[in-house]
């Protein structure tokens, strides 16, 4: 049973998921995923300072404080590598540590000598408590997240250029610095608005995991962004629902657990880049190579007049062929077993002949190519024949000089 308040919170966390998924894609493709973590941690001193200055736990006071220190952190991370010799990753790690340290120090001060009542809300900001959000807070969250998502969608072409080839972008006169600046601002805002729902410690995960998951499913930037947004929304919704089942369960960790569930699912099952598919394709490929090896071996024997070859010699001996490949030969009808011996069928002879021919041509073609295309080297006969009919040999040997 979903309460009206939960519904509003759901709208908030799902749009937040979309926004994080979109912005996270940009970070991941720039290989700056850690940046999200650094900025999230640099909100903490701002939250506490906001509380100390305003003297209350109001949404706006804490949010403004968080935004200010995050922007300072973002500025440091992007400027330090430019003005000094510190590398970007060191700058990011330093900002994370220094700001979080300062935040914790301020926090214990505030808890001891501040206007009191802060400790109660502390874990909400560290770990998030979406169910505890007011309706108004959820609506602000939803509005801001939608607006930022729209900006990312509208500017996707600029972001694509800056992620993929920033040097090219600036050579065409696109303002790469402005674009980087926009990314930083959007990221900082996203992190600040997600604090009440997901919390300081885990916001970064909501930014990083959805795009990493989406990468398994596609080879295109725009589609990756769309999938990432979808996974972000799904994690937001499922996390909020699961955590609202029991009031004392913080939302942040549950949202992250949901998104990492999608991550592992994708890592295993995605069709092209998933581990299971890769393993299966690898196995099929090697089995087929093994099958052709057996066929060619039997074919050579046949040419020497040995119609039958002992199975023992194929499985063990100098061949050491894999038994599963031999079974594949038999199930394809290429090889017949007569007692302890093996014999090529007429289909098997044709297949072996064709494979040998194609291989000869293919090797001649590869000899002429100065580089080897790893996607192409291991082809089936059909592919080779098709490829070579469309791409003739550069330096075709005349028939009289055919290699013997």
């Amino acid at each position, binding site marked *: 049973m979903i309460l009206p308040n939960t519904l509003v919170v759901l709208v908030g966390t799902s749009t937040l998921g979309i926004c994080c998924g979109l912005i996270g894609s940009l970070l991941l493709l720039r290989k700056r995923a850690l940046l999200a973590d650094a900025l999230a941690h640099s909100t903490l001193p701002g939250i506490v300072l906001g509380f100390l200055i305003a003297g209350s736990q109001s949404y706006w006071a804490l949010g403004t404080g968080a935004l200010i220190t995050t922007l300072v952190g973002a500025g440091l991370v992007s400027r330090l590598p430019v003005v000094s010799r510190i590398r970007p990753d060191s700058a990011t790690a330093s900002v994370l540590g220094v700001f979080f340290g300062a935040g914790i120090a301020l926090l214990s001060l505030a808890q001891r000598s501040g206007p009191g009542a802060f400790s109660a809300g502390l874990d909400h900001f560290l770990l998030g408590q979406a169910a505890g959000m007011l309706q108004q807070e959820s609506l602000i969250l939803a509005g801001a997240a939608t607006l930022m998502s729209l900006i990312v969608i509208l500017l996707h072409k*600029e972001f*694509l250029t800056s992620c993929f080839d920033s*040097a090219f972008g*600036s*050579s065409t006169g696109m303002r790469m610095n402005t674009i980087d600046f926009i990314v930083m601002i959007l990221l900082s805002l996203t992190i600040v608005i997600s604090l009440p729902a997901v919390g300081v410690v885990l916001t970064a995960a909501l930014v990083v995991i959805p795009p990493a998951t989406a990468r398994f499913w596609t080879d295109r*930037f725009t589609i990756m962004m769309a999938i990432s947004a979808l996974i972000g929304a799904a994690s937001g919704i499922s996390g909020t629902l699961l955590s609202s089942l029991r009031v004392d369960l913080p939302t942040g960790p549950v949202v992250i657990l949901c998104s990492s569930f999608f991550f592992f699912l994708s890592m295993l099952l995605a069709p092209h880049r998933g581990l299971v598919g890769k393993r299966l394709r690898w196995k099929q490929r090697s089995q087929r190579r093994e099958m052709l090896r057996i066929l060619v071996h039997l074919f050579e024997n046949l040419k020497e007049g040995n119609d039958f070859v002992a199975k023992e010699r194929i499985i063990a001996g100098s061949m050491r062929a894999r038994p599963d490949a031999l079974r594949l030969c038999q199930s394809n009808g290429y090889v017949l077993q007569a007692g302890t011996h093996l014999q090529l069928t007429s289909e098997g002879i044709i297949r072996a002949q064709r494979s040998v021919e194609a291989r000869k041509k293919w090797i001649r073609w590869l000899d002429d190519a100065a580089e080897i*295309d790893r*996607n192409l080297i291991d082809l089936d006969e059909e592919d080779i024949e098709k490829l070579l009919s469309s791409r003739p040999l550069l*330096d075709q040997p005349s028939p009289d*000089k055919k290699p013997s």
Partner: protein
Amino acid sequence: MEKHGFAQCLHDCKGPEMKDPAIEIHDLTMAYREKPVLWDIDLSIPKGSLCSVIGPNGAGKSTLLGCILGTYKPANGWIKIFDVPRDQSQELIGFVPQRESVDWDFPIQVLDVVMMGTYRSLGWFRWPGKAQRDWAMQCLDAVGMADFKSRQIGELSGGQQQRVFIARALAQDTKIILMDEPFAGVDAATEVTIREILIDLKKAQKTVVIVHHDLQTVEDFFDHVLLLNLRLVAAGPTATTFTRENLLRTYGGKLTLLDEAAEAVRRIRSGRSTGKRG
């Protein structure tokens, strides 16, 4: 023209002033930190030429391209593009980056890369549409890669990757194109294709500047040459500038080694072309 001071003397020594060059560089020094990577460069590249930039590793060849593109701001001196100072020039320059600088695992397909060439003409916020797609397809076709439009870029061979990035530069439709080592690590088929493209570009009156590493092919491919090693050693038409003496000044002692290797390659090649195969 304005007064140039001492560099003008050097400039004068290098022969007569060129008539309206595509790119003019004057007293250029470029330094990332204190030490310069390019020092006191003066040169002009004529309009419509196929120009190669030659020099040892670390000579500042890529940096020179970066300065012309406007990616780097020189410490001293200036660059003019079609007689307009670089920082005021709206003139666009096509660019083919070095292979190593590209993230080949990036989720982007061939056609999307080529379409990037049209982004500038679209301006902020506007999405590429059918017109851009058709134009990109046309450019892809020009480099013989139309069949590969939906491949992820990492799934191509080195030569094919190079051609895709040339197609992107073509899609920019600029009067000047810079390429950073387009012939590095490409197969014979790609080398032929790139040469054909260069010849077409020359016919279309484009100015092409190419960082090149293979001394063997300079005379065949290019009509203009810049010899660079932190400073400009020599610049001019290939026929008069690409001399053994100038190469020695550019590469120093390393050339002897290069020479021997080149001689060996030449012998092998001539042996192959007389038909001793298989």
